[in-house]
C-alpha cells in the first residue's frame, strides 16, 4: 500500500531571469502527511502548483499518482483533491448545494451529507456560503476537496485565518483524513501545525530543500534541551558560564540561552548558583527544540551563502 504518491527529481522553475525553484528532489509515500514548509518566496507555491497541474515546470521529472501533472487527464483529476491558498466558494449557494455541484464533477463522489458532517458544517448545511465565517468557508473548501473521494489531497495553508479552536478542529479533521488512508501534501506557516500533523517535512529556503525527514530526524525534540532566561543587568554572562559545565552560552543583552544534553544537571548548577548569588533568573524557560526552532535556524537570512 506504500505506493509512491508523489515523486520529484531535479525540479526547476524559472520566471524570466528569476529561478524560483533550483533543483528539488523528494518523494511522498502513499498514506503519509507530508509537510512542505518555507518562508514566503521560498518556492512553496510554485512547487505545489506544478504538482497540482496548474503550472509548467522548466525542467526536472515529476510524477503525481503515476501521471505527469503537466499533462493532466480527467481520471487523474478525479483522484486529487485541492484546497487552494486563495479560493472562495460561491457565496450565493448553500453549503449543501456547493458540495452537490462539485460532487457531480467526479465519477465516484462521497455522499454529500456525509461530507458536510465530516467538515463539521452539519448545522450550517442550508446556510449560504456568503453568510459563513472565514473559518467555516475554509471548511467548505476542504469539503469540496474531499467530495470526489480523492487518494491525494493538497492542502495549501488550510488553516490561515483560523482562530485557535477552529485550528484544533481542522487538525482533527486532517488526522481523520489520514486515518481514511489519504495522502496529504500540506503547506502551512504554522510550525506547530506542521509538527503536529506531518509524518515528514521538507523545509525550503530560496528554492532549495535544506532539510527533509521526520521531524525528530531534523532535531525536533532532540539535539539537547534549550534553556533560556534573563539575567539582571550588571551580572556578566561569563558568571553563568563559569558555573554551568560545558554550556555554550549565547547571550544578547540580558537574554541568555544555552543548549544542554543533560538538563537536570545544568539546571541544578544554574539555579543553585543563582540562589547562592541572589541573582534572579527572569523568564526562565526550559524546552526541547520545536519544529519552529529548527525552521528558524534553517531559514535564517544571515545563514548560509
Amino acid at each position: 500500500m506504500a505506493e509512491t504518491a508523489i515523486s520529484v527529481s531535479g525540479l526547476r522553475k524559472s520566471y524570466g531571469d528569476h529561478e524560483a525553484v533550483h533543483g528539488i528532489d523528494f518523494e511522498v509515500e502513499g498514506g503519509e502527511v507530508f509537510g512542505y514548509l518555507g518562508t514566503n518566496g521560498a518556492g512553496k507555491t510554485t512547487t505545489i502548483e506544478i504538482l497540482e497541474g496548474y503550472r509548467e515546470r522548466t525542467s526536472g521529472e515529476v510524477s503525481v499518482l503515476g501521471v505527469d501533472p503537466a499533462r493532466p487527464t480527467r481520471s487523474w483529476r478525479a483522484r486529487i483533491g485541492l484546497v487552494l491558498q486563495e479560493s472562495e466558494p460561491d457565496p450565493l449557494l448553500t453549503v449543501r448545494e456547493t458540495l452537490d455541484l462539485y460532487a457531480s464533477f467526479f465519477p465516484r463522489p462521497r455522499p454529500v451529507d456525509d461530507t458536510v458532517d465530516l467538515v463539521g458544517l452539519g448545522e450550517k448545511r442550508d446556510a449560504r456560503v456568503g453568510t459563513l465565517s472565514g473559518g467555516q468557508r475554509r471548511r467548505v473548501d476542504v469539503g469540496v476537496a474531499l467530495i470526489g473521494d480523492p487518494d491525494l489531497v493538497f492542502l495549501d495553508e488550510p488553516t490561515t485565518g483560523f482562530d485557535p479552536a477552529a485550528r484544533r478542529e481542522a487538525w482533527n479533521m486532517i488526522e481523520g483524513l489520514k486515518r481514511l488512508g489519504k495522502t496529504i501534501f500540506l503547506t502551512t506557516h504554522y510550525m506547530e501545525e506542521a509538527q503536529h500533523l506531518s509524518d515528514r517535512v521538507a523545509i525550503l529556503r530560496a528554492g532549495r530543500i535544506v532539510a527533509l525527514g521526520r521531524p525528530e530526524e531534523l532535531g525536533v525534540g532532540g539535539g539537547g534541551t534549550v534553556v533560556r532566561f534573563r539575567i539582571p543587568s550588571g551580572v556578566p554572562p561569563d558568571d553563568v558560564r563559569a558555573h554551568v559545565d560545558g554550556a555554550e552560552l549565547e547571550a544578547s543583552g540580558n537574554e541568555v540561552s544555552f543548549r544542554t544534553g543533560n538538563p537536570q544537571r545544568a539546571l541544578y548548577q544554574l539555579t543553585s548558583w543563582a540562589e547562592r548569588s541572589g541573582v534572579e533568573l527572569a523568564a526562565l524557560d526550559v524546552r526541547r527544540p520545536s519544529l519552529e526552532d529548527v525552521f528558524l535556524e534553517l531559514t535564517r537570512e544571515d545563514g548560509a551563502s
Partner: protein
Amino acid sequence: MSVGAHPAEPGASARRDAALVLKQTRYGLVKTTRNPRVLVFSIFFPILLLVLFNSIFTSGGDATTKFAGGRIDTDAYFTAGILAYAIMMSSFSTLAIGLTTRRESGELKRMRGTPMPAWTFITAEVARVVVQIALMALVMMLIGHFAFGVDLPGDSAVGFVVYVALGTAAMATLGIAITAFLASADAASTVAPFTAVILSFVSGVFIPVETLPNWLEEVGRVFPLYHLAEGLQTTLVSGRSGTGLDGGNVAVLAVWGLAGLLVAARRFRWEPLGRD
C-alpha cells in the same frame, strides 16, 4: 490502482457530461435568482425602462418613427430596442462581471482542478443566459402587447426568435471574450454595463436612430447592439410579411459572435490576470 480505470463507454460518458451541463445550468439559474445585482440590472431595470420609455415618448400609441426597416409604431420600436438592451445586459454584461468575479475569487481555478470538462462549464454559462433571456423576451413582449398595444410578431416570429438567439449568442461570446482584457471584477462591473448604456444611445435603443446625427449613427452601426435592435424592430413592424430577417444585420451579428468566440477560445483565463 491504475489510472485509466474507466471502461470505454462513450455513451455513458456523454450522458454524464450532458447531466453535468444541466446541473451547472440549474445552479447558475438558482444563483441568478439570489444575485441582487443581476436581478436589478438585467431584469428589473430593463423592464422599468420599457415601461418608462413607452409611457413618456409614444404619445398614447399614435407616434411612429422611421428606420431602416420602414415606419414603425414608436412603442414597438422602443419595446424591441429595450429588449436588445436587456439581451446585452443579461448576456454580455452578466457574463463579463460574473466570470471576472469568479476568476478573482479563485473559484474558476478551483473548478479547473476538478475532472469537470471546461466545455460543460462554458456551455452551462451560456445555457443559463439563454433561459434567462427567453423568459425576459417573453415577459417584455407581453408587457409591450398588453400595456402598450404592441403587435406580437406574426410571419416575422421566426425572424424575432432568430435575432434573439443570434444576439444572445454573439453578446455571450463577447462577454466571455472581454474577460481576457479586464484585470479585475471592479473593472468588469464598470466597463460592461457602461458599454451597454453608451451603445444604447447610438444604437436606436434609447433614442430613435432617425434623430441621431449621421456620423453618430455610423458609429453605432459598427457595433452589434445596433443590428440586434434594428433586427428586432424590423420583426415588430406591424402587419409586415416575411421573416423580417435582413442579411446585413444577421451578418454583422454573426461576425461579432465569431470574433468573440475566437478570442474567448484563445484568451480565456481561469486564473486571476497578472500572474505567471
